[in-house]
């Protein structure tokens, strides 16, 4: 088996290089053990991580400041300047919990629809030979190339005018079902599985549906998790579409409520940045927490491990 499985190794990383017997396929760099290179790599990663995490950290610090302090010392929490008043300020104008719930329903609906459509289409594109497959694949690629944003006018006409789905969850969700990223992920994944697996099942007399359900899907945990992660992030982050079709505050996902707060209401707040950042923190935390929970699964399973099983 050629697929390596770095992820499966001890997360501490230190023991990986030396014991080639347990991880025969670890990258050569680790075995080489060039100390200098590893230090350089470590420092690069550390610098990168600080750059990447700082705004996130700064968001939380800013959210808890009573008086906004944009100086360098303001980047460090000052106990005398800490408050939860910003959270109250924004919660007074935006129903944070209700908006979060809307975000969750919107995101959940998209994930469900994407997974069902994606697994079926991905499998058929990767492993089944049928007339029109190239056409379907081409059409799917087209959606990757042409983002739905470029279709926002006709979609708006359709969803709002023709179907009357303004201010509904369904109206928010359905345009995202076309997103081909999940289809693409599953297709790539199923293609990467050895053909022998499928051939063997077929010889055993399994139907394609059974192969999909019993062979392909059980092996595709990592792909499913990737697809969930990717399709989670899309709608959770999405601003434009729900912004266009939800005008009723009670239907708006948090990203939309917060953006409206930033553009219209914040000007009248006592500490506008503080209130915005408090809202931003509420929007950011669930996504990060869910992601970190998923991250563990990513570490435990990987493509290589599935193949060996």
């Amino acid at each position, binding site marked *: 088996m050629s697929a390596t499985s770095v992820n499966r190794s001890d997360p501490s990383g230190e023991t990986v290089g030396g014991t080639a017997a347990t991880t025969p396929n670890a*990258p050569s760099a680790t075995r080489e053990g060039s100390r200098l290179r590893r230090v350089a790599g470590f420092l690069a990663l550390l610098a990168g991580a600080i750059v990447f995490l700082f705004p996130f950290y700064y968001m939380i610090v800013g959210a808890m400041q009573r008086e906004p302090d944009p100086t360098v010392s303001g980047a460090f929490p000052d106990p005398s300047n800490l408050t939860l008043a910003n959270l109250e300020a924004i919660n007074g104008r935006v129903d944070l919990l209700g908006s979060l719930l809307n975000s969750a329903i919107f995101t959940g609906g998209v994930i469900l629809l994407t997974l069902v459509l994606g697994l079926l289409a991905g499998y058929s594109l990767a492993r089944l030979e049928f007339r029109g497959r190239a056409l379907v694949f081409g059409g799917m690629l087209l959606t990757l190339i042409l983002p739905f944003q470029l*279709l926002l006018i006709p979609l708006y006409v359709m969803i709002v005018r023709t179907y009357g789905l303004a201010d509904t969850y369904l109206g928010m969700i359905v345009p995202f079902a076309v997103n081909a990223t999940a289809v693409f992920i599953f297709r790539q994944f199923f293609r990467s599985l050895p053909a022998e697996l499928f051939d063997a099942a077929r010889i055993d007399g399994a139907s394609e549906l059974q192969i999909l359900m019993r062979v392909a899907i059980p092996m595709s945990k990592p792909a499913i998790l990737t697809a969930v992660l990717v399709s989670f992030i899309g709608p959770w982050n999405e601003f434009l579409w729900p912004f266009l079709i939800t005008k009723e505050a009670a239907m708006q996902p948090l990203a939309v409520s917060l*953006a409206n707060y930033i553009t219209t209401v914040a000007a009248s707040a006592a500490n506008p940045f503080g209130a915005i950042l408090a809202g931003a923190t509420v929007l950011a935390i669930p996504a990060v927490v869910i992601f970190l929970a998923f991250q563990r699964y990513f570490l435990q399973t990987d493509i290589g491990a599935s193949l060996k099983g």
Partner: protein
Amino acid sequence: MSATPRAEAPARAPVTRRLLGRQPIGALFAAPYVLFWLALFAWPMGLAVVISFRDYFFAAPGAQVERPFVGLDNYAQALSDPVVHRAALNVAIFILINVPLTVVLALVLAAALNTALPLRTMFRSAYYVPYVTASVAMVGVWLWLFSSGGLVNSLAGGLAPDPSWLVNSFWAMPIIALFATWKQLGFYVLLYLAALQNIPETLYEAAKVDGAGVVRRFRAVTVPGVRSATTLVVILATIVGANFFTEPYLLTGGGGPNQASISPVLLMYQEGIQQGEAGYAAAIGVVLAVFVMGVSLVYRRFVEEGEPA
């Protein structure tokens, strides 16, 4: 070896197989996706063209309104509108900054993450944090960081541009491109990481036997090894460039200053939804769709050149 695509054995097939393919059930599997695709992608695309030939605006249900056919008027207007030109230029600026930065940084970081280093898991999570956090939330932080009295300016001191970053017609677009790069990079690191793990170890061994150093191995084995991932990264990063909306809408207050950071999608929103010129906005969308498809095709050719089919 198992990951290499297997060539299908050519065989003489019965008529039904030639007509429907070897596994016609595949069409059934793909059907749900295809239906959504037709309803929410193909149909709106057609509708966009129809709308773009009319003086179309949004009327109340039941209202008798005229939406005269205006031929190519909307297109002529779009092609001669300086704001459309500016939006196109901004897409170019965005891609020019975002794509090279993304490819280089993502590959380097992924390569570093693929070696056994302490705290690797933590680093990897750090890079994903901006990616999983909603743009609207992160924009809140950047607004604060880059405002005229913000942290960046207090660090920059005399080097701070005047007017400040987000209202500076030179800096507004680069800041948006940097924001998008920073925001998305974690996803591309993930793509590269997966690709790196599929490079057969034997290739590195062979290169080492040939006496290749670290840099040579990176260039001779790693870079070509992740070529298909690079294609994907380049195309996806380009597409982000064609559809960014949240950043100019929120970060630079509606494409400011003076349209310096206007994006095509923001323009479509302003013209179509805010000002009710849906026909004109649809025409802009169609022009951009054609443009994006063209660019993507060129890219594919260019990036995949020399790659075995």
